[in-house]
């Protein structure tokens, strides 16, 4: 059975409502590595309730219909599906605790042809239930490696082509070492896919150990850009997106390479020890320097 194009395009996912607390916001900060210097004021501002801030990328784990593509029973081969793209566009500062809701919509299926796979694109708007305020638009894709040739209209996400890396050395490099138990911590945000925790399941999927959640690497990229370009001010970030190009294993040390051009950022992430580019074609839009640095 192969991917059913018509069924997937018409897929209707129920609305998800999530009430989250400052504990959830703190756990999210800790899972990105904030607090690894526990006496650093900046680190503490993302993991301690006094003057707590939410990392903007937390939008990706809120009110998420985890595992929807597997539950949808639209014929995809789940063991060959991997996270392809992740992006968010931010409209408001994320509250550190509130109730949010979102409805996921399939926006397109990009058929790469037989043997090449198909890319399923989807997005959701995250809003605060109490105020009705739109907080963020979250866009993502799953690369279904076993489902090429599914047919249907040719769909192109033209605005999501991978941009060229600048020709100069990076303007900033942030180096983070991940914890060996990081995937075990990150999964508490809601993605309990055993590929991130159970060694046997990971082995069956072709990995010699459980892999880190792509959304965790994505969150660390957000942290890196906030630190390098925004003085860790979450208000400085307008949008951030990236393609996932190789898995990260918990315990990996990751270099986030960042190029800043006025208010636009290009970035990628590399695990030097394995010579692997794990995030590529990353891009972020920042608010003006005045707003970023609160001048």
């Amino acid at each position: 059975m192969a991917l059913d194009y018509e069924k997937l395009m018409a897929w209707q996912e129920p609305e998800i409502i999530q009430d989250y607390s400052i504990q959830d916001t703190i756990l999210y900060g800790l899972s990105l590595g904030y607090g690894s210097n526990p006496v650093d004021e900046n680190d503490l501002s993302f993991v301690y309730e006094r003057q707590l801030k939410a990392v903007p990328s937390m939008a990706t784990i809120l009110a998420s219909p985890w595992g929807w593509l597997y539950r949808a029973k639209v014929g995809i081969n789940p063991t060959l599906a991997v996270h392809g793209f992740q992006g968010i566009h931010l409209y408001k500062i994320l509250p550190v605790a509130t109730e949010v809701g979102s409805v996921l919509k399939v926006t397109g299926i990009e058929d790469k042809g037989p043997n090449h796979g198909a890319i399923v694109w989807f997005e959701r708007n995250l809003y605060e239930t109490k105020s009705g305020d739109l907080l963020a638009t979250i866009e993502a894709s799953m690369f279904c490696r076993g489902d090429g040739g599914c047919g249907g209209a040719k769909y192109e996400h033209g605005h999501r082509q991978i941009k060229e890396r600048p020709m100069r050395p990076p303007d900033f490099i942030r180096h983070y070492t991940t914890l060996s138990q990081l995937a075990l911590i990150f999964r508490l945000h809601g993605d309990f896919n055993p590929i991130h925790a159970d060694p046997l399941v990971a082995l069956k999927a072709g990995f010699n150990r459980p892999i880190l959640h792509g959304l965790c690497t994505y969150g660390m990229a957000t942290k890196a850009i906030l630190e390098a370009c925004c003085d860790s001010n979450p208000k400085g970030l307008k949008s951030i997106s990236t393609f996932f190009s190789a898995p990260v294993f918990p315990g990996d040390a990751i270099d986030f390479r960042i190029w800043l051009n006025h208010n636009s950022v290009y970035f990628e992430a590399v695990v030097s020890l394995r010579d692997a580019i794990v995030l590529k074609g990353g891009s972020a839009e920042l608010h003006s320097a005045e707003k970023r640095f609160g001048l």
Partner: protein
Amino acid sequence: MTLHYETLKKWKIKDIERTYSAKDSILYALGIGIGQDPLDENQLQFVLEDRLRTLPAMSVVLAYPPLWYWERGTTVNPLKVVHAEQGFVMHRPLPVSGTVIGKTQITAIIDKGISVGALLRTENQLIDKKDQGLICTVISSSMARGDGGCGGDSDDQKEYEFPSRLPDAQISISTLPQAALLYRLSGDYNPLHADPEHATKAGFSRPILHGRMSFGLANWALIQAFCPTQPELLIEMSARFAKPVIPGETLLTKMWRKDKKIWFCSEIVGSNKSVLTRGEALLA
């Protein structure tokens, strides 16, 4: 004003009810540092929901009334109270999720003299709400350093002597610099463990680990040494707090065993600083 023995002896501590999920049990284990080897089945049993077991030491954090001595009228000077001893007796394994009721009583007020303080001992019965069965008895002691000379109960300190030989087992467990920040999500939000300014005011150079977390680390060390696949076999444990652990330090637990009886102590690797002393435990 000083501690009034009769008032405190009759003091009623309110019952606590706590509902916890498998996720809370997992977060507790991760807070202790379990999962550092994410391929080790003996660690995964505490952090994966499809095979989940609880660490017995989680019983001491579930439904214990935090800082009860801060309530008005106890006559205790709360500013000078430090956690002194911790212990538990398991009556049956702690479920991975459920609702528990903690009933706490003050069982002894021991006057250690004006210069030392008064030792306040409590017993917390942890009861499963579903069938009212007793899961665990948690025994805690706090030293009220400002309340010595109150004229309390007679000292009941037992003899303590461990075998005079090299330890039968030694386990070292490293802690993360952010360990206290993760551990506090299990419910003890005392700023002493997170806020550098607060820690300085309390006389520490930086935030310290929770005493109950050091106790949990020793619990995990004992299980690794004597019952790694059957944590429920560890049914009794107690120790005295000597010094706090700074997040990032490595705790070395030395253990001696004779039949079902275990003696242990924990220290900081590289400093000879004792953290837990007079440790005792019992296997089923």
